[in-house]
């Protein structure tokens, strides 16, 4: 399975501890990322014994694209992710077992076929997708890999990644750098590694100045060479978040917002949306222009628990999920899907979202929203996704086949809407 070029391996080895890939031997091991495909009838169930390989009846043959001898030399494609919704979502799943999150792998879901394809097996988590959609960043514990979109040709980037169920690695929006959080939870540091025109691991990493903030989660910034992270501390499997910091790629501070969380930066307008903590109920969304001298704008939304939000590709609309929950009984009612449109932030209500860990994501063509959540039947938890046509306010729902978890809660981790696949 290993397709690591020997010459490249030697170079990686020489790059040694000072490079992005301090342990080149691991790169060889990494090339065994499991690859398989399945349909709804050949999928693992809750009773399946956990295996380091994805449980599937399909023979784990290399996918057609993985037979190429081409190394994943990354060259950024100018511009944002190519437009055109594809009906395919890339996501990772995690199962909550004994109060910890077990990574169940990274999958590609084709909505039209109702099929799930394994990109990487148990233990892997989706961190980010390159701006042109061709490459992935996947984590396996403290190891970070760069792979092609189908999971092939994995290359170890670092083995010091923050090993928590969080987004600890991103591509910068200009596609020229990888950034990730190194550490074990309490003494983390943020580093970046130029990637343009070369393999990661060939360049030296640079530590990004984070001041007195300990980064715990990174957030991608579309189109910009900007870093956004939440700071706090990670301990006993849980990261607490105490604020948001925005900085240039060299660490130059742009803004620091103590107490805030859930940052999302718009693709073109350089607007930062976030939730200010310590305010009850948590239904106030703040939008701040990152241009100098701007003041924050706060929008109070119906509902009392802001769950997730996503900027449209043109940066002019913000889709927000806001849960209506009874403070008295704890009962969950609707998860409202609200569309806010700049510049006046007029509000439009769409079909409600659903489930635990509800997520929303704009399609690359700006026409649809991908909604995902974990719903509970009488016997099990399962992940459901819906593609919501924003204009018509109609949704097609899809139960992700075969990824049910029995009594254990299964959740989506990373979630991305892919550009056309296979890409070429």
């Amino acid at each position, binding site marked *: 399975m290993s397709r690591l070029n020997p010459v490249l391996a030697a170079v990686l080895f020489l790059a040694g501890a000072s490079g992005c890939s301090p342990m080149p031997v691991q790169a060889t091991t990494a090339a065994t990322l499991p690859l398989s495909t399945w349909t*709804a009838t050949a999928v693992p169930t809750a009773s399946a014994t956990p295996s380091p390989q994805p449980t599937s009846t399909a023979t784990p043959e290399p996918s057609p694209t993985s037979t190429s001898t081409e190394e994943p030399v990354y060259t950024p494609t100018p511009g944002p992710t190519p437009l055109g919704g594809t009906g395919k979502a890339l996501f990772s799943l995690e199962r*909550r077992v004994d*109060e910890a*999150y077990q990574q169940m792998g990274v999958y590609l879901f084709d*909505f*039209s076929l*109702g099929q799930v394809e394994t990109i990487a097996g148990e233990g892997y988590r989706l961190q980010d997708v390159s701006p042109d959609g061709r490459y992935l960043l996947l984590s396996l514990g403290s190891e970070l890999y760069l792979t092609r979109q189908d999971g092939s040709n994995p290359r170890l980037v670092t083995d010091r990644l923050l090993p928590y169920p969080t987004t600890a690695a991103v591509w910068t929006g200009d596609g020229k750098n990888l950034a990730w959080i190194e550490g074990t939870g309490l003494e983390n540091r943020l580093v970046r590694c130029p990637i343009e025109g070369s393999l990661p691991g060939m360049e030296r990493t640079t530590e990004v100045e984070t001041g007195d903030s300990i980064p715990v989660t990174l957030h991608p910034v579309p189109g910009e060479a900007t870093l956004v992270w939440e700071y706090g501390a990670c301990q006993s499997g*849980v990261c607490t978040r105490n604020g948001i910091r925005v900085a240039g790629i060299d660490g130059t501070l742009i803004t620091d917002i103590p107490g805030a969380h859930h940052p999302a930066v718009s693709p073109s307008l350089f607007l930062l949306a976030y939730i200010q903590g310590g305010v009850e109920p*948590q239904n106030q969304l703040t939008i701040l222009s990152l241009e100098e001298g701007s003041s924050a704008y706060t929008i109070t939304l119906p509902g009392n*628990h802001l*769950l997730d939000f996503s900027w449209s590709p043109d940066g002019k609309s913000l889709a927000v999920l806001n*849960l*209506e*929950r*009874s*403070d*008295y*009984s*704890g*009962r*969950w*009612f*609707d*998860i409202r899907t609200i569309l806010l449109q700049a510049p006046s932030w007029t509000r439009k209500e769409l*079909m*409600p979202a*659903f*489930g*635990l*860990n509800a997520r929303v994501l704009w399609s690359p063509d700006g026409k649809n929203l991908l909604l995902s959540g*974990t*719903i*509970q*039947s*009488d016997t099990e938890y399962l992940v459901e996704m*819906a593609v919501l046509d924003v204009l018509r306010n*109609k*949704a*097609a*729902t*899809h*139960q992700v*086949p075969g990824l049910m978890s029995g009594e254990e*809660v299964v*959740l989506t981790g990373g979630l991305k809407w892919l550009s056309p696949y296979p890409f070429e």
Partner: protein
Amino acid sequence: MTRVVTRKRMIGLPLMLMAIFLVGCTGSAAGSAGASVLATQVNPPTPETGSPYPAADPAEATPSSMPGMVVQLSPEPEIVHGTATIEPAPTKSSEPTASPTPDTRLKPEEWQSWPIIPEATNRAREIYQAGLALGNDPHHFSKVGDCQSIQEAFMGFYDIPTRYTLDADRQHLKATIDQFTGSFLRDGMAVHGGFTAASPLSPMLANPDTCQPGETPLECEFRVHKPVIVFIRMEVWWEGRSAETYERYMRRIIDYAIEKGAVPILATKADNVEGDHEINLTTARLAYEYDLPLWNFWLAAQELPNRGLRDTFHISYEGWNVLSYTGLEALDSVWHGVQQTQ
């Protein structure tokens, strides 16, 4: 596999959890505005602007109001000590039935004669020590319960020094109040109106602002508060609920609390909605089997008008005082007891 949906969807919930809300703690439909309705119904205008509690005048309480805050001005100590003559005999083993010492404890079937205020058992001491070793906060206790455990109804005023007084012979309780300051006026993540024994175990009822994805209210409460003692009082009843179901979920809650090193204090309830006191009997059986403290509030309520109830389920205004006071005494007794060497 794929279906087009054009109508508003509902969040999927199991039948079990749907049943939770058929009869809520309020006895009426519990809506999303429940909390604010509660506040306006219970708290009439008070002379103390900004205070979360009404004045301590029972006349201000309306019969239809939800359990409101009653200021503990002068507890009735004679109620507290009950009529029991035999104290549960602590055993040296975590398995009570395996103790070589004759088990002189009252049997679960005699639960109505169990003392109101429990003492710490040897099992409780073991759990407490394990909890300290796990890093639990010796200044924290938690509540797991329904509307009869919310801060306005249960002990919340002990975190507001101007809202209660202790009689001269009850001053020893001040040390317990001081020890657990901050835990009284707090619902935590595992107390909500309408909660049944199944509710704290459902991630679908957790607060998403505080709790991790997929985390249950019970797990969330223990993670954020790290209690050394936990009151477990699940009293809501609906038609068709069985004691077996109650017991099954209670075991999971108790097991979890023990695993996390928090001493469970179980409690009997004042009502008998089920008709045969089966829930209280089950609770006593669990306390007996696990060798845990049982706070016999049912017994304390018997001397109150209408046995401490204002309807068939809700504790009366007078009952709240006794509930909070005996709860404090139970906490005091168990907390002091678990610190003693075996």
